[in-house]
């Protein structure tokens, strides 16, 4: 992970740590904080706790996003402090709805100059975002919204399994994993498990990203905690709830970062801190599917 981040993410890079509630690679966010990378343009539909932590650590100067809350719990306090009080630094916001974010990523993947969507009429959202334009459909004359492509410098995708080439297989909630890999300039694939290519080839429908798009492959079990990985471990919801208290004051927030991010040299050290009791509690109870016949 150290190398993947230091070779891909620079001061000022645009970064998209992918994953909609599921498969959010906190391990990558923590490594970015440890490496002290600054002035990032951070892209996510939901910044979630991972960007809240990077914000408090002073890594982010711009955010392109759709919904900045603590999912199922409430507010993101570092985000609110940054916007309301410019603490620890001022951030620029480029705000869409989720549909707008997805559309931007699709345009980036398809290398089109814009993506049309039927949205935003009768709202204030375009007032604060000059990247949301109105276009007239050349066939029907209908007014539609259009957004430009989003092509992040680095996209970080977590998945259940990948081979050494980065052919990545994921199941459960996908977010925008497939599209974002094609939109990105560099792709880091992080996997719970590294498998032989034959495992990937035995179930090709499950592959979300082909290895030829991938610049780095990282093996990082438990890399998503407190987010979840279907079939591996559950969301640590108690942590998301506790986060509301931890993050409310800058002091308790700093203590958390000192202990669980800066105080851990890597993910192994983090999981040791998590402890086996919590890991046992979160480990998924197996639900195997029957499998399909790819014969011809």
């Amino acid at each position, binding site marked *: 992970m150290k190398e993947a981040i230091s070779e891909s993410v620079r001061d000022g890079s645009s970064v998209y740590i992918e994953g*909609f*509630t*599921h498969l959010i690679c906190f391990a990558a966010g923590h490594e970015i904080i440890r490496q002290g990378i600054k002035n990032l343009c951070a892209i996510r*539909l*939901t910044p979630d706790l991972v960007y809240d932590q990077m914000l408090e650590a002073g890594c982010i100067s711009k955010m392109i*996003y*759709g*919904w*900045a*809350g603590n*999912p*199922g719990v409430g*507010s*993101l306090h570092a*985000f*609110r402090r940054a*916007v*309301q009080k410019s603490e620890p630094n001022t951030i620029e916001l480029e*705000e*869409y*709805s*989720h*549909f707008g974010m*997805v*559309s931007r*990523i*699709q345009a980036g993947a398809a290398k089109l100059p814009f993506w049309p*969507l*039927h*949205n*935003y*009429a*009768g*709202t*204030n*959202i375009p*007032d*604060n975002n000059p990247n949301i334009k109105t276009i007239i459909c050349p066939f029907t004359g*209908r*007014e539609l919204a259009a957004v430009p492509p989003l092509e992040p410098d680095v996209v970080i995708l977590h998945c259940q399994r990948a081979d050494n080439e980065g052919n990545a297989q994921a*199941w*459960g*909630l*996908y*977010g*925008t*994993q*497939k*599209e974002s890999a094609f939109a990105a300039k560099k792709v880091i694939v992080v996997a719970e498990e590294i498998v032989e290519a034959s495992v990937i080839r035995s179930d090709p429908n499950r592959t979300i990203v082909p290895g030829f798009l991938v610049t780095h492959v990282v093996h990082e079990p438990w890399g998503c905690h407190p987010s*979840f990985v*279907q079939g591996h471990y*559950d*969301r640590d*919801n108690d942590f*998301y709830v506790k986060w509301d208290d931890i993050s409310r004051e800058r002091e308790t927030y700093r203590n958390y970062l000192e202990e669980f991010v800066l105080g851990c040299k890597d993910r192994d050290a983090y999981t040791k801190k998590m402890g086996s009791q919590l890991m046992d509690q979160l480990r*998924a109870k197996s*639900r195997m599917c029957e499998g399909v016949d790819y014969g011809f």
Partner: protein
Amino acid sequence: MASKDKNYTPSEMMAVRASKELKDGDVVFVGIGLPNVACNLARETHAQSLYLIYESGAVGAQPERLPVSIGDPALVTGALSIVSQSEIFQNYLQGGRIQVGFLGGAQIDKYGNLNTTVIGDYAKPKVRLPGSGGACEIAVHAQKVLIVMRMSPKSFVEKCDYITSPGNFSLGKTRKEWGLPGAGPQTLITDLCVMTWSDAEGEFVVTELYPDVTREMVEAQCGWKPKFANKTRDAGVPTEIELKLLREKLDPQKLYL
């Protein structure tokens, strides 16, 4: 607001009343919080074949526990289909396949416009809220929208500080004039009453009062002067079975209730 002689809370009443809006077989776009509880309650009671669709990509979910957010591994296990978010927004929502969308917000006006973005000025907000997420597109595209919100003069306002999700009349134009495909907010379920959209009045009108709630109590919590239907209906009360499901199965940790 909990009164001594009632065996249920206002939140439980809201969840139960919201669940009644859902018919068996409806295709519902489910949101975080109380709507999540209401949809899962409907599925456990009168609408077993409700299609629960979550913006995270779960289609036909049958969660075995109350999902803690709109993205939860329990939404995947046993679902009919899992799709990418571009499919959810483009094919399911923009494609007009969603019959009912649930929304809430920090502010609402009498037209059903919702604000989940900022209190105060956008550039210098008093309170910075999470933003749209999928709310704007749900308000635009769902065939009809149900809103679930607790009443207070701060949240039921004459004018929203910011319109995140369009209601039935916004920024000087009707939905039709804006070309918005869905029918917009139809029912507003609060902790005191139910309001229904009235084309004739051009605003939400109070159509049901909860037990022991007076018109004055509703007026005191509403930032505009609410209109009342000539004859308000009785909203009913939660049954023992509904309360047991809510307390023991759907939200035993009382995250939302």
